[in-house]
């Protein structure tokens, strides 16, 4: 630890800031993709559903790292598009994690009671009004807990960009490792940094969930468990729900 001078710490802290930026921007892109694709998968036109389903299967089916290599090395050679490394990284992360997110959006929309949709039709709301005024406000709180897990996966995924020379925490760590010749201290430090980031994200999402649930008049979820509940749902149909999702889960 003694070898870590202020200059080296600065490298790590700059990397930390870049990781935060990467996470925020790719989460925004990912959320946009997730909403568009997720809503498109419930569209009444079959062709729209097929196209959005294909997008989801393709981007979920391949590895985020391979997609990143493709955007960094194949796009410039094959199509002549050279993106700034930072934006290429955001594009790769946003597109692939957006595909996972679309499944969360679709699931939450499907979980809204059909009678709500029917009430909207009966009151002659347009499809867009039904979506934005009836379905999404009710689906939104359902999305937050799985979105939190996905956000943590995205944060972990940002470490991949260091391979492409984007100066995030992991990239800073390899520079420090080369400078000091020691691996143990610096890798321990950055693991702790990632953990603190993940912890902060989880806390933030908990607050968001409480607000969202209060917004539609639901009490914040009582911590699952309690005899009554297990007695009523003995088969535990919801078992996978509190399992953290990752890359290819379901």
């Amino acid at each position, binding site marked *: 630890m003694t070898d870590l001078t202020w200059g080296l710490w600065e490298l790590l802290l700059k990397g930390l800031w870049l990781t935060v930026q990467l996470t925020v921007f790719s989460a925004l892109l990912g959320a946009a993709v997730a909403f568009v694709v997720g809503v498109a998968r419930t569209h009444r036109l079959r062709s729209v559903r097929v196209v959005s389903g294909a997008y989801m*299967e*393709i981007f*979920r*089916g*391949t*590895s*985020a*790292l*391979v*997609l990143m*290599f*493709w955007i960094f*090395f*194949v796009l410039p*050679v*094959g*199509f002549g598009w050279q993106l700034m490394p930072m934006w290429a990284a955001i594009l790769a992360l946003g597109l692939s994690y957006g595909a996972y997110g679309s499944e969360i959006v679709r699931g939450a929309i499907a979980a809204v009671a059909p009678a709500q949709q029917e009430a909207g039709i009966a009151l002659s709301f347009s499809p867009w009004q039904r979506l934005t005024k009836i379905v999404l406000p009710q689906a939104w709180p359902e999305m937050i807990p799985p979105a939190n897990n996905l956000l*943590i996966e995205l*944060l*972990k*995924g*940002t*470490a*991949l960009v*260091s*391979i492409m020379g984007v100066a995030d925490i*992991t990239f800073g*760590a*390899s520079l420090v*490792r080369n400078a000091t010749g*020691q*691996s*143990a201290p610096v*890798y*321990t430090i*950055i*693991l702790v940094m*990632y*953990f603190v980031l*993940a*912890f902060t994200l989880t806390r933030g999402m908990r607050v968001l969930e409480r607000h969202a649930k209060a917004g539609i008049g639901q009490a914040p979820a009582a911590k699952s*468990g309690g*005899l009554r509940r*297990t*007695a009523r749902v*003995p*088969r*535990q*149909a919801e*078992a*996978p729900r*509190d*399992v*953290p999702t*990752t*890359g*290819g*889960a*379901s």
Partner: protein
Amino acid sequence: MTWDWNAVSEFLPRLWDGVLLTLQALVLGSLIAFALGLVWALAQRSSLKAVSWPVTAVTEFIRNTPLLVQLFFLYFVMPEWGITLTALAAGVVGLGLHYSTYTAEVYRAGIDGVPAGQWEACTALSLPRSRTWSAVILPQAIRRVVPALGNYIIAMLKDSPMIAIIGALEMLGQARQFSAETFQPTEPITVIGVVFILIAYPASLLMRALERRLVR
């Protein structure tokens, strides 16, 4: 956009080697993840705080930090402590350890899902603890979580290219090497992207079918 089929056919033998190494890493990694995950899940349920608390802390830590950094840790730090691992070994251990923290949660959900009456019946029949677990609880819990475990194998498949970064020549490693030698990155990287989908998509269909059969 130029596409050179010759490059594809030259890459195919290496691709095959890469697929084999990926599958090898995947099988060994899953074995570690499944075994270790069960150990974590049981330890987290322990009534001894001295056991359950550290295990929970460690698994939370591993689950919330990037696999890539953990691989670097295994590959670069362990030699400083006198344990030198090959790239493949470090990769397999890293994948297995990382995913064991996910499978632990899966097992936990499965065990929690066993109806309370099953526990009470074991008490009523005064089965010893070992029999309770091995003959009553775990068979029911594991049957229910098989599809979820399978989904984590697919997730692991998609994280497996990371072991190429520490030097294991799985699919991505082969593609990188090939493109470094021939300056043709387009074909190998596109081909392995497609191969990933070709493996992952049928596998995820299989898991959905299993889920319908086993989880009712």
